[in-house]
């Protein structure tokens, strides 16, 4: 579903991501963990087609992101760490805008928005301007907008920040459902307990380099993910 080959991205003299390679298969929830400034967001933004990288390749379902970015973006959804949305729009207008961009039929968008807005309990607020939303509500709206077009791959940067426990629970369920129906999820998090419970595979990044990756069992063995992470960080 997602194949990252030797991705490198530099900012000035600093290598934010250094020769990183990953392969995410359909049905997998792939967690991405690392310290602040390790290169998680840079990798995620590169995969989402927002950042242009220096070298390497990214393939979405076999399509090169470099050569055919629009086709790739049609198959993915990106949820940023900070849901900066168009504050001059109302929630419903924003969702309609995203649906228009993805060419979703009126029937499908209405059903999808109805269902997801009710699920995340923000339906009654959809007419209000986004500027009046709390951080959590914006995050919920960003999640709904990402799911409107049935993406095959969802890329999320710290998706649980700002969500209330119920919304977090719902999102975890949705993530599993998407993977069960053949999709894949690649997300970063600092909450190692969540990663441990939710992820099928995990990748640990340190100073731009991938230092460990594999199934949860392969990475942590009998220890807790937290212990493994802290040990790797200390090396």
């Amino acid at each position, binding site marked *: 579903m997602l194949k990252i080959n030797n991705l490198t991205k530099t900012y000035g003299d600093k290598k934010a991501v250094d020769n990183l390679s990953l392969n995410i298969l359909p049905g997998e929830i792939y967690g991405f963990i690392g310290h602040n400034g390790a290169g998680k967001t840079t990798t995620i933004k590169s995969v989402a087609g927002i950042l*242009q990288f220096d070298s390497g390749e990214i393939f979405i379902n076999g399509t090169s992101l470099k050569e055919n970015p*629009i086709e790739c973006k049609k198959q993915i959804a990106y949820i*940023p760490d900070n849901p900066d949305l168009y504050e001059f729009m109302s929630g*419903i*207008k924003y969702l309609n805008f*995203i*649906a228009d*961009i993805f*060419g979703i039929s009126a029937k499908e968008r*209405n059903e999808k928005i109805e269902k997801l807005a009710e699920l995340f309990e923000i339906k009654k607020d959809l007419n209000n301007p986004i500027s009046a939303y709390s951080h959590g509500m914006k995050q919920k709206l960003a999640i709904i907008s990402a799911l409107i077009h049935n993406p095959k791959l969802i890329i999320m940067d710290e998706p649980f920040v700002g969500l209330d426990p119920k919304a977090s629970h719902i999102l975890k369920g949705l993530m599993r459902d998407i993977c069960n129906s053949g999709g894949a999820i690649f997300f970063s998090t600092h909450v190692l307990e969540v990663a441990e419970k939710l992820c099928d595979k995990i990748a640990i990044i340190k100073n731009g380099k991938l230092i460990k990756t594999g199934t949860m069992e392969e990475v942590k063995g009998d220890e807790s993910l937290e212990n493994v992470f802290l040990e790797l960080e200390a090396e």
Partner: protein
Amino acid sequence: MLKVLLKKQMFEMFRSFFYNQKSGKMRSVASSAMFIIFYAILLVCIIGGMFFGLAFSMCGSLCAAGMDWLYFSIFGLIAVAFGVFGSVFNTFQGLYMAKDNDLLLSMPIPVSVIMFSRLLGVYIMGFMFSGIILIPVAAVYLIVTPFTVLKLLSNILFILSVSIIILVISCALGYVVAKISNKLKNKSIITVFIALIAFGLYYYIYFKANEVIGYLVANAASIGAKIKGSAYILYAFGNSAAGNILNLAEVITVSVLAFLLTYYLIKRSFLKIATSTPKTAKVEFKGNVSLKKSGVKKALFEKEWKRFLSSPNYILNCALGTVFILAAAVMLIVKGNEFLTVLSSIFNYKNGNDYAAGLIIGILCLLASLNGITAPSISLEGKNIYILQSLPINLFLSLKAKVKVHILVTGIPILLCSVISLIMLKPTVFLGISLIVLPQLFVLFTALFGLTVNLKRPNLNWTNEIVPIKQNLGVVIVMFSNMIIGALFIAGLFLLGSFININLYVVLFTAVMLIVNILIFNWLKVKGTKIFASL
């Protein structure tokens, strides 16, 4: 405690001198010094010099007639108006809407200390605005009339008192603005409407100023007698600066009492207003979702259109030209014949009417150059830019949507003016077509050029949208360049009019515009889109 808050307040007020908002880094000492010198020259030499000249023209005659008080009353009132106009919105923002209100209120700092530091900031702002008028006015007075220490002291105390009066009025109006702002639903439309009225008044007063001042000087004795008899406060206000100790004591006492009363009243409501959440047009979503599908182009245009309409700052700073264009259209309908007769007579050629058509094309281009909607449009994406970058669209469509907004807001009013001119002037078929086509080509150029400059000089790291709109060199470059091109067309008409046939001149200019537009359009399509994707 107060010292720390004042230091913070001062740094906040003069932050732009020491901090580069675009790069997010502190300026070097040399850069800060250059900035301060530039602003000092701008304020002291240009605005201060203007008031120095104005004061000089009035001081001699008024003081010779024993109307020193009227001299100070006039300039004192101008200073109050200037100071209040300049600081009322800062008062509203700084006193009630300061972003650090919550942070400071959560700290062990007495509310009165927070308020006092904020008020001092407003006072300094008012002092800067009034001082730029009253310091030259006082200097002229001390030069023109015999110098005494009493006059000097009176002038200093008068200037300080005027700043207190400005503080009091600004606080009162700031309170009203804060109250209204918390209750308003369609803030942007109402703000634009109020601002347009204020602009209208400003220009009306500006154009009437010479007439009014001339009238005041000519009728100083009778006006002075009327004010003395019926408006003692105004008389005492001016007389206090002229060295009358009793009036000076009265003005200082009233100012200080007014300040204390303001302080007391604000203290009572400060917490409530500073911690209230502004109301927004909240409408509960009821029933089922029933949205309609639109195409990508329409969706992108609607997004840009909503962005434009949502911001009074954007409308007022980048689309004010539309008001002038529409005013020109009305003027053409009402006084078009007289205007066109004058234009035709300017050109001493046998086909003066044709040249008048050319001149109208130039005027329309100049009017169009007043709008620069695309110039900050990339920067205004700000932190939201990732949305467009992550969507499966050709980003050139998004650039085109920005151009379309500019064309809609500028091109249509210009087209209206062109059509009215066409009907009134009845030029040849060729010039008639040119009257429609060339201004539209120029409008397209201003849109494309604005976008190009903004792609080259974007500022996406802003916290206040006024930064990319107003404090943006790119916007200034775009607007001035557009004006220069419009002016060049007119200048060429006058300079080359007797050598080149008007039709040829218009054809040449149209061809240049067309070629430049095609070149920029293609640049935007290929290079501009890549730049947009990589921001």
